[in-house]
């Protein structure tokens, strides 16, 4: 077990280090001098040179990387070029809508995906299966922003049931927040449920073939008891993994949806930063989002070995 833990943790550290290198290189390879951009048109060549020294941009790339990583490890992601605040503060301010949106959306995806996937597996090959599987495929073929635009047209513009955009007043109530989040969460939830349907179906089909399911049926248990107690409980383990990964990917993947609904979240922050070439923000957000993904991935892996001891034994 210890061996497995060390190996897995080591792998995650390596991946995190590579993520940091990639993020660093991405922004350093970018065209356009960030210093010239920061100082504006008025700056002379001497000003720019001085600023380059001040920001350490005159040092070799490896030194710059070490300095940057040192700062990052101390929790300092640098200063935004446009927002007049540290990147960490900007991220924290934008974290709430994104977190709620991601949680809300994953719940919707699970509520749709698990029962539908289960039904498709139980009645596999029938018209129910075909309809559900086709819907799942359809969900993976719809551009999220377009789906969002349609929902806005129907439910916000024509029916007026929900606000079309934004996150409400700063001191809005929880219910009000939910109303603002419902349409974007529906977009992400419905589209991501496609994956959950496919995964649940595959997982349930796997379990249905297990010996203990046959045993349960043979000893005369009712089909519903077999399905819920023996099949669903075991089939859900991999499904929960995918839900976790979906949540992890959503934290950064809500970019488009947040823009459609004009939600002041992390995704919105990134898009604005990209359009304004605010490199410290791009760098910091990419790093944090990728790190969250790696951590959730690691946590799921470790949880998995607790739930299912076969996995850690296999690795040896």
């Amino acid at each position, binding site marked *: 077990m210890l061996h497995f833990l060390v190996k897995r943790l080591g792998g995650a550290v390596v991946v995190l280090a590579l993520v940091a290198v990639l993020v660093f290189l991405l922004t350093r390879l970018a065209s356009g001098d960030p210093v010239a951009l920061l100082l504006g048109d008025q700056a002379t060549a001497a000003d720019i040179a001085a600023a380059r020294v001040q920001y350490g941009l005159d040092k070799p790339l490896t030194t710059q990387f070490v300095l940057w990583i040192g700062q990052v490890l101390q929790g300092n992601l640098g200063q935004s070029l446009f927002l007049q605040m540290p990147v960490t503060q900007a991220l924290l301010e934008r974290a709430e809508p994104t977190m709620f949106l991601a949680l809300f959306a994953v719940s919707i995806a699970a509520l749709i995906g698990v029962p539908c996937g289960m039904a498709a597996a139980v009645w596999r090959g029938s018209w129910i299966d075909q309809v559900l599987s086709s819907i799942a495929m359809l969900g993976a073929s*719809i551009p999220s922003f377009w789906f969002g635009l349609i929902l806005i047209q129907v439910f916000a513009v024509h029916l007026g049931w929900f606000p079309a955009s934004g996150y409400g007043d700063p001191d809005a109530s929880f219910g009000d927040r939910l109303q603002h989040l419902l349409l974007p969460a529906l977009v992400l939830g419905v589209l991501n449920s496609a994956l959950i349907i496919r995964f649940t179906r595959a997982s349930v089909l796997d379990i249905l073939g297990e010996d203990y399911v046959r045993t349960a049926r043979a000893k005369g248990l009712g089909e519903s008891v077999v399905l819920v107690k023996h099949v669903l409980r075991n089939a859900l383990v991999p499904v929960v993994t995918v839900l976790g990964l979906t949540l992890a990917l959503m934290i*950064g993947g809500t970019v488009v949806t947040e823009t459609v609904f004009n939600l002041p979240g992390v995704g919105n922050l990134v898009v604005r930063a990209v359009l304004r070439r605010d490199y410290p923000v791009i760098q910091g957000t990419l790093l944090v989002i990728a790190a969250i993904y790696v951590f959730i991935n690691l946590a799921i892996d470790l949880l998995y070995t607790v739930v299912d001891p076969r996995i850690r034994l296999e690795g040896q």
Partner: protein
Amino acid sequence: MNASPTALPLPARAGWAQSPWFKTLRRLFARKVVLLSAVVLLLIAATALLYPLLTDSDPNDMNISMRLHAPSWAHWAGNDELGRDVMARIIYGARYSLMIGLFTALGAVVLGTLLGMLAGYFRRLDAPLMRLVDAMMAFPDILLGIALVSILGASLWNVILALTIVYTPRVARVVRASTLVLRELLFVDAAKALGVRTPLILWRHILPNLLSPVLVQVTFIFAYAILAEAGLSFLGVGVPPDIPTWGTMIAGSLEYADKAFWTILTPGVAIVLTALSLQLLGDGVRDLLDPKLKNKS
């Protein structure tokens, strides 16, 4: 093998009907959904390619008197904010959208197969390459796409390049997993024993067996790239607005969505139809090539 005398005489078949390719295709298209999606894709591609022969209306023809006109007999999909015929632009835009999808898929498959084969075949390269793949996959697709396009600069080819980089790790993972299995098979051992050199083993013995998983990836990445391009264009970091892709069409008409909904509805339908057909086709190929994998995502 000789037919037994009691067997009914088989109708004489043309040579091509006996070929394994033909048999595989027939099994693939035995499923109506798969056949339908292939037909839809062919129709879309043919319309896009033959467009100049089919109509003489110019997709860039502006007609201000037709500005934001609702769909009519003359203009099936209505007119956009500059009075351009939406249908003509969808058909014309198909060329760019399909081009982005196809080139991205091919690029990602070539690079990903190379990386995956190296990682899967050479144990020393496995860990470093796969950790790099893990690191790249830690970024959500669209986010990595945005970052790359913003660095490379927004142009048609840079969007293709960025999306290729985004989807290469996926292919690498799939190909590595298959290569790991293939490497241990007897025919590879036999080739090694016969003294076949490693590059030739990879080329002649491993690569052809990777065809099926790679083919599935082509269809899926094709679909994802079309969707991603639309997303990037919507965010304003994609293809320049003067190139009519389905994505830039929606992005360009956004302001008018309230008054002229058709300007964003129909290009979106084109995207959904194409992406859905591609994925259904890919799903069919996957089921066909590996019955064991059936029903798995």
